[in-house]
């Protein structure tokens, strides 16, 4: 029994320690990267961050945009979006043209051939 409680305490402490440390590192990475990349693309984030500027502390764009629309309709649309987006909620935002790091003929070579083996 004592052993079990000891294991439980150790376990929860380690799990929390590991995940809190991860939280901190990921948060730090986010800060660092955004401080690097921010100056380069100042326009885009701004418009994204304030989709509905006049409403201060807007809970969410969705809720905002639905003012005056009956709840049922919103529910239906929301459900449709949910079912379409499935497990990849950021599909649309994160679509990006992949950086072409090689000249085209090199890239083609990688795709279609035996080269890398």
């Amino acid at each position, binding site marked *: *029994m004592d*052993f*079990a*409680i000891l*294991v*439980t305490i*150790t*376990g*929860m402490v*380690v*799990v*929390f*320690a*590991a*995940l*809190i*440390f*991860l*939280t*901190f*590192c*990921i*948060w730090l*990475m*986010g800060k660092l*990267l955004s401080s690097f*990349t921010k100056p380069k693309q100042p326009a885009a984030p701004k418009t*994204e961050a304030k989709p509905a500027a006049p409403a201060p502390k807007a*809970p*969410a*764009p*969705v*809720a905002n945009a*639905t003012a005056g629309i009956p*709840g*049922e309709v*919103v*529910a239906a649309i*929301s*459900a449709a*979006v*949910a079912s379409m*987006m*499935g*497990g*990849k*909620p*950021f599909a649309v*935002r*994160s679509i*990006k043209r*992949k950086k072409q790091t090689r000249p085209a003929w090199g890239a083609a070579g990688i795709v279609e051939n035996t080269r890398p083996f």
Partner: protein
Amino acid sequence: MIAIACVLIYLAIGRGFEPLLLLPIAFGMLLANIPVANLNSYAAPYIDPVTGKEMAGSLIYYLYQGVKLGIYPPLIFLGIGCMTDFGPLIANPKSFLLGAAAQGGIFFTFIGATMLGFTPQEAGSIGIIGGADGPTAIFVTSKLAPDLLGAIAIAAYSYMALVPIIQPPIMKLLTTKKERAVVMETLRPVSKIEKIVFPIMVTLIVSFLVPDAAPLVGMLMLGNLMRESGVVERLSKTAQNELMNIITIFLGVTVGATATAERFLDPKTLKIIALGLIAFCVGTACGVLLGKLMYVLSKGKLNPLIGSAGVSAVPMAARVSQKVGQKENPANFLLMHAMGPNVAGVIGSAVAAGVLINICK
């Protein structure tokens, strides 16, 4: 035993309980319990005492080595890594805390199992059912208490299938109407570089702190790196399809074939099934309760319903959060917020698995 196997086949096909694993598990159980046929996971090669000839082990025995040696579960995690988008977790790293809290079910059940007379090895394997992660549960059990593999795998996958039934009452009980109606802020977009750094960072941190979790987390993150890098699409596609399917068949059949009558028809099995349910319930409750705490601390910005998604069972538990939340406020769209704790729960239970293996082995 054969009747139990048939019931499981019915649950898999007729009720749609995680059929990808429950169907092979049930069929493996069926095979293992046909007398004389000797198609169980323990039928090792042997020397015939009469003729002195070397006899081969059963087909199942050879395929089972991948479970016994801890090869299959990390390879399945490789495929899962290729399928998982950690974006919501990167955008809101606080989700990690909810993913940690939901592991409370594991350790609570560990105490309960010890009290019921299970050895620490068995108790750890039973507790891990609360991680709501099949490969993690099988990985831990194959290392600590391989005799319980059948019962634990069946309990884990059955309860994962039942998440939409188990979780909502607990979630409603522990939250107020106001809390459930909280609409959360849209998550920030996550850059490609963050998604690439994330798997490397998680591998390093988790493996340093909990080395026994390294095979699971390492493979999960290799898969995710293959996915997010975008340069090895052909590998990523094979890892999440053909490789994972082949391993799933082998894993399912051989885990099922560990459940011979003398191992499965034991009062232990019923206790395991009961404790597994407790593990799921407590895990859900812990997640929701930490959610409530964070609701208070964040001054009402966080919806505690997303805490229940911390048990893993990706993405079913996140969908449950979404559904329960939408009942209060039809315009509420919690799914993407719940995906954060949901994928954090996978990492969390791998960490818990590492701790249990380290202490109990």
